[in-house]
């Protein structure tokens, strides 16, 4: 009977796992891809690659956890680099950082498509629904990256660090660091992702005239400071926030008020950390007085 033919990768009697769990890092996912090919699971149409922390155990499906393996990850990376090039790899990484529920599986089908058709520019084939899904996810991640580059609001602290809190939809800190590193070379700054509990920090004393400092990762910031950064504001900070609020209010044309458009461009979930959206209607400092 065909369906009971011995599978060389598995002892007879063990079911083929249709779910492969990876440790939630890009390396973890690459290791899982290696595992799938090493165990010849790649033709299983029901195969799913799921991040460990998102997996809800079920009675029907059987899941296998893959331990990250640097060597395996590296081998997959080299192969994918060769198949997809820089821009293709960028798509995979950005897609991965979306942390979407099914992204591990989508990425896998894209990778399999690339491996099956090594001479095809598969990333251009948006007629393939997995490629399309990835391209659209990359677009959302790109949009979030751009929004974070726009909506980060630094607050100057008593330590002379410009500090910002964010809660991005996707894990975009690894993508926005370079933009801020190039731009703010002559000030200390940090951006902290409250949702994911880590941040990036630029210490200008490590920079030289020709080379901005390398970014550092920071974790475990004081909860009290994160909730109320005003406690560490420098003497000038409040003044400039008020200037900004006065500017923001007065550059608006009230005759053209358009709340729907306003919300479309500036979705409400971002307002929390925008000082210009914390203005009381009759605040003294927004009035036009000489």
């Amino acid at each position: 009977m065909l369906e009971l033919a011995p599978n060389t990768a598995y002892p007879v009697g063990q079911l083929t796992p249709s779910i492969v769990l990876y440790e939630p890092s890009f390396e973890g996912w690459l290791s899982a891809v290696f595992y799938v090919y090493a165990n010849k699971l790649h033709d299983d149409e029901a195969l799913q690659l799921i991040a460990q922390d998102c997996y809800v155990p079920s009675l029907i499906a059987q899941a296998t956890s893959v331990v990250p393996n640097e060597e395996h990850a590296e081998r997959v990376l080299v192969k994918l680099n060769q198949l997809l090039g820089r821009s293709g790899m960028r798509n995979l990484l950005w897609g991965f950082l979306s942390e979407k529920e099914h992204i591990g599986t989508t990425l896998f089908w894209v990778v399999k498509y690339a491996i099956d058709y090594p001479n095809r520019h598969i990333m251009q084939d948006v007629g393939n629904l997995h490629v399309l899904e990835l391209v659209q996810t990359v677009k959302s991640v790109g949009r979030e990256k751009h929004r974070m580059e726009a909506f980060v609001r630094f607050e100057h602290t008593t330590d002379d660090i410009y500090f910002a809190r964010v809660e991005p939809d996707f894990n975009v800190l690894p993508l926005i660091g370079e933009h801020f590193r190039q731009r703010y070379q002559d000030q200390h700054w940090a951006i902290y992702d409250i949702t994911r509990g880590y941040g990036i920090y630029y210490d200008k004393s490590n920079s030289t005239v020709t080379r901005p400092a390398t970014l550092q990762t920071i974790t475990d910031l004081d909860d009290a400071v994160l909730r109320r950064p005003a406690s560490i504001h420098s003497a000038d900070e409040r003044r400039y926030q008020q200037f900004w609020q006065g500017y923001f209010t007065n550059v608006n044309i009230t005759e053209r008020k358009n709340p729907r458009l306003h919300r479309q461009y500036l979705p409400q979930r971002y307002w929390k950390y925008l000082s210009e959206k914390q203005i009381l209607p009759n605040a003294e400092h927004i009035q036009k007085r000489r």
Partner: protein
Amino acid sequence: MAAINYERLQGKLNILADAAKYDVSCSSSAGTRKNQGGGLGDASKTGICHSYTEDGRCVSLLKILLTNHCIYDCAYCTSRKSNDTPRAAFTVEEVVDLTMQFYRRNYIEGLFLSSGIFKNGDYTMERLVEVAKILRTRERFNGYIHLKTIPGASKELLLEAGLYADRLSVNIEIPTKSGLALLAPEKSHDELKAPMQTVKEEIVTIRESRKTHKKAPKFTPAGQTSQMIVGASNETDLQVIQLSSHFYQTYDLKRVYYSGYVPMLSDNRLPAIGTPVPMVRENRLYQADWLMRFYGFGAHEIVEPESPFLDLDCDPKLAWAIRHREHFPVNIQTASYEMIVRIPGIGTKTAKKIVTARKFNQLTLYHLKKMGAAVNRAKYFIATTGKNEHLAHLTRENFRQYVLAQTQTKYKDQRSGQLALF
């Protein structure tokens, strides 16, 4: 440097932001300045909108007037001499301080500095240039700087401004000569175009010299722009579009902005206070402008002399397609890119996707939808390999009414107030 009086600065900022708000340009794109040598700021090629005001406009730059004192009395301008409005003036150091501090907090991409004209054009322009010079040299600021060229300022000052600024602009204000003569008798189109010509010539000169001397200074790397007010005088869209087309071709402008007139002054030469801002018309003009700059349309195709206004009920590309059904249906599997971007509901990005994806697949309306096309409009104009039953409508008698009825915006109620102007 003089100490800054921070107590008074808030009031000044509020007044001079308010006075600058009718200048539409907020773009911070096309900057190429890199942060070299550990300074502050690094241009973003595509520009960044850091916030949006409640009117839905982008806040990218600190857009202020140096002063709203003005010797001119242009009817449409809130800073006109005869208007009873609070006046204020920044010092050069105050503008520098606000720009640096806002930039450091990631509020802005840079500075847009304009001014009312005090004493004379040169005196005003000198101060604008001084701000830009201090930012670039003393503060080592590499963010975006957009300076307004003041009418009547000397050529030498314009040339100096272009060395520090990323972009220069002079507003043509009113699209027709007769309209300008009526509303701003002290200004003329020729006088306003003169600095445009100077800047354009210098851009060409510097571009040539950079071919041989790589280190030659850059001159307004983001080019120059202009703005005109629509709805303040009785200009037609045909006149507006033709003037823009002329600017793009003759002066190589990067952008022309259209500012729907907001009635805020009582003057019998102007629409009465309370007249709705012509926002739909303004929107259609921008769409038409895009068609000229990115879609390969000529001005003569967008508005035709026999009906000199844009169709407010539908976008100008759809309007063109309805007038010229002889060009449709377009087969997305085989047509050229140039023809695909002319299909209503398909933008440049989708058109590019179509051209690459069709090598792999026979594209269907479903694919188009997934790629982001507005299929509700596009479907009447497209031939695919499979059958497209919507094409049957293309030859209908009342095609325009039919398509408009099917593609009506759900926000019509909110926008219809605008139409009363005409």
